[in-house]
């Protein structure tokens, strides 16, 4: 589709030469590079609670961000008015970072390469609201039917469609339509008179609404949330101290996101403030470990046809057989360090400057039988569900929080455990990986990554793995 037929061009009367003239203003005081990012986002969110559909919200936001780079300096300004006049005003503000004779942007924008990972015939937001609400009612019923101890169900559904267009002073022009839909179910259960426990499930991706009828149904998420809440009713205190830890497949891949992913974002490494800085070519994990960040997987939550700087996403090998191979770059870090682009420049919305970010981060599968991995552990813990994590990229210390885990005794899963933190140090922890399973799975599609105040959707994945040594923050001795 040519840009002139795109949603942004039709809705706001935007033409490519408007963006070219904005770029000329952006470089009017010099600078090495400039880009214009135009965004329109429509959002719907629905929720049910106490079997009452309590809220339904629809809205739109739109704006354009103009960036000027001069050396390692960045000037940025945005406007929520998409007229060419307002964008030029913002470009003048962004230009203030530079101080010299005007630079000239390349004339005649050319379309940059892009993937086609989520071209839906019908967007979720084009389906009548009534049909989307029905998903919530089904989740509510299924969770309540799962077990009589379930006493409260909250389910939410949300979809967005984000139209973006990026024009750069080196003559590239790309645009994309990025759909997203997800459901979440949260369940409270209790034994009569006992304290309540919560279970949580959810998923989605860059998918049509039929995904929730054909692939992962509201009943699937509801039962999963209810099952977790009921399991937690019998949970005992998690152990304290260093343990052998087995991570199950899928969402526990959040370990990689915290332990190595953030530390490999090139902005931190360009500045030398990451624990991984200067370690390319060094052993940072067990030889069994290969970690990939791949933004090109069809329909996934973390996937993107182009990043928010207009570069096509890629499959990037971060760690290969334990050796650190590369960082995730945005335009600035690639420009400053001379490294190849990785398609990792992302931003939350037009109000933000892009940064190197992850997309779908996962560990490649190994040769071990997952059941054999559990059988190999005489005493340890098995983690299946996590709430998320956090990392201090400078020291490399990270934490991630288990929400569903079990004691392993004599090679078998025994008692469920209460929530506990697992901690480690980025360049050290993965050296203790001693077995990697053949069951690689990606998560269900709920990941949100926060960095310097910006949230972006991401995916994670991992096969079953055994880590010989990791500190578990329980309370039992």
């Amino acid at each position, binding site marked *: 589709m040519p840009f002139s037929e795109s949603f942004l061009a039709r809705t706001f009367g935007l033409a490519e030469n408007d963006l070219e003239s904005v770029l000329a203003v952006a470089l009017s005081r010099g600078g090495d590079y400039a880009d214009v990012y135009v965004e329109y986002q429509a959002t719907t969110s629905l929720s049910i609670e106490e079997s009452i559909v*309590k809220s339904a919200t629809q809205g739109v936001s739109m704006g354009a961000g103009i960036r000027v780079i001069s050396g390692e300096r960045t000037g940025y*300004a945005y406007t929520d008015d998409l007229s060419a006049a307002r964008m030029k005003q913002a470009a003048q503000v962004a230009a203030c970072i530079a101080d010299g004779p005007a630079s000239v942007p390349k004339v005649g924008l050319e379309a940059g390469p892009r993937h086609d990972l989520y071209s839906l015939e019908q967007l979720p937001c084009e389906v009548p609201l009534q049909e989307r609400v029905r998903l919530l009612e089904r989740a509510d019923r299924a969770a309540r039917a799962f077990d009589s101890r379930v006493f409260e169900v909250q389910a939410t559904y949300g979809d967005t469609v984000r139209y973006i267009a990026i024009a750069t002073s080196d003559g590239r022009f790309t645009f994309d339509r990025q759909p997203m839909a997800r459901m979440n179910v949260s369940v409270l259960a209790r034994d009569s008179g006992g304290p309540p*426990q919560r279970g949580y499930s959810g998923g989605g991706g860059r998918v049509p609404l039929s995904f929730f009828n054909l692939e992962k149904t509201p009943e699937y998420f509801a039962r999963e949330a209810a099952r977790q809440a009921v399991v937690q009713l019998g949970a005992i205190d998690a152990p304290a101290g260093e343990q052998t830890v087995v991570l199950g497949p899928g969402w526990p891949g959040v370990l990689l996101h915290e332990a190595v992913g953030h530390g490999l974002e090139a902005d931190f490494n360009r500045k030398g403030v990451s624990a991984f800085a200067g370690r390319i070519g060094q052993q940072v994990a067990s030889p069994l470990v290969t970690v990939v960040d791949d933004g090109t997987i069809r329909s996934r939550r973390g996937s993107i046809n182009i990043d928010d700087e207009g570069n096509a996403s890629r499959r990037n090998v971060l760690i290969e057989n334990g050796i650190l191979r590369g960082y995730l770059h945005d335009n600035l870090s690639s420009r400053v360090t001379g490294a190849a682009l990785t398609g990792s420049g992302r931003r939350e919305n037009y109000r933000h*400057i892009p940064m190197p970010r992850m997309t779908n981060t996962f560990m490649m599968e190994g040769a071990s039988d997952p059941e054999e991995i559990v059988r190999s552990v005489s005493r340890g813990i098995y983690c299946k569900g996590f709430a998320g994590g956090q990392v201090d990229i400078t020291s490399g210390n990270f*934490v991630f929080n288990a929400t569903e885990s079990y004691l392993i005794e004599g090679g078998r899963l025994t008692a469920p455990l209460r929530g506990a*933190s697992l901690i480690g140090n980025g360049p050290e922890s993965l050296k203790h990986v001693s077995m990697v399973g053949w069951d690689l799975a990606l998560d269900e599609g709920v990941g949100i990554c926060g960095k310097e105040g910006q949230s972006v959707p991401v995916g994670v994945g991992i096969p079953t793995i055994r880590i010989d040594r990791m500190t578990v923050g329980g309370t039992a001795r």
Partner: protein
Amino acid sequence: MTFGLDRLQEVAAAVVAMARELGADGSEVSVSEGAEFTAQVRLDEVEKVKEAGSSAVGVRVLAGRNTGSSYTSDFSPAGLQTMVRQALDSARITTADPHAGMPDPAELGSIPGDLLLYSEDVVRLETPAKIDMARRAEQAARDYDPRITNSEGAVFTSHVGRHAFANSQGFCGCYQTTSCSLSAVPVARSGDRMERDFWYTLSRSTGGLESPEAVGRKAASLVLRRLNPRKIASCRAPVVFEPRAGQSLVGHIFTAASGDAVYRKASFLAGRLGERVASPAVTVVDDGTLPGMFGTSPFDDEGVPSRRTVVVDRGILASYLLNTYTARKLGLKTTGNASRGITGNPGVGHGNLFMEKGSTGVADLLKLAGSGLYVTELMGFGYNPVTGDYSRSASGLWIENGELAYPVSEVTIAGNMKDILMGIEAVADDLEFRGSVATPTLLVREMTISGS
């Protein structure tokens, strides 16, 4: 482009009228605009300058007991009308909720007088002066000690915000705010291990900021004391929370005392009004009326005046924090704690939320602890408000013979909030606001520390 307070109020009133014409039984409208500025200096070079403004309007309509919400950044008459129609469409697919609605008209209002939320000096401050403050803060940090080998830079930010709120019961109010902040993040190295830490100052006026040099030096001193950390053996021991880390405990009390969690029974404090939930040393207050503070506003996001609410009174759970909806669900009255973004059903927020200071000096509190962990930073999401289960990654310093001895990292602290609150043995006298949540230094008698 800025609209100004009068224009925001006009838009709010116009949307209320439009909603009525289009058939809504009631409506609530928020209109906001903001202008932000950020300058980052790193290794003495300007790295980033960002300057921009934006605005948005949101409406929640009532159609009987059904509600629907919408928002937009398109202020044209057509844009506003599309927004109201979307909200009405949304209301059609919700379920009638007997507790949905607006505050009683008698509850609406605004605190009179100047709350000192706006200061012209923030608006007038020129870009070079802002960059200079960031430069000085970073320089002071880098000059402090040769072990400071790198820096993530120093950042100056300022913000000007204007907000109007109107509803179909005749409430129409507005206020404007300014804020500015300065922070520094130095990095120190010892061998092949690095550490970072930060310090910051923020105020509603430029005159209220600490000096750039003070910010830089404090950040440097904090990062230096983290160098060469040890990982300690697992144990049960006293834990002292430095105010920066202890803030999160007050935040956890808020989460559990907020009406949303309470009526859903998703809180370990549900059903415990009037009961002892913490040691007698603990008094927690939410006060949205303190002039010049970051949690202060003349009215909440439903048009109810902000107020002072004692949440925990010498260990006894004295009040939940409520908006109109959660109050009705619990058979109580709103505490003026409604909070929402630009639209949607109100949630519960806090004003200035703090633990009242005690009479013990910090040095004496460390002596009381004897030996244990002094926590300066917590990471992770290991708090479950439903059960109170608590397990977080911690770093800080080990306390030996009542004095800070050596840095510790890569440990967790764990327990249950019920026990942690009952175990708060002493509260120091060093309460200081740096944002809307604050606590003095706290001593918890015993927690599980997990290490090697």
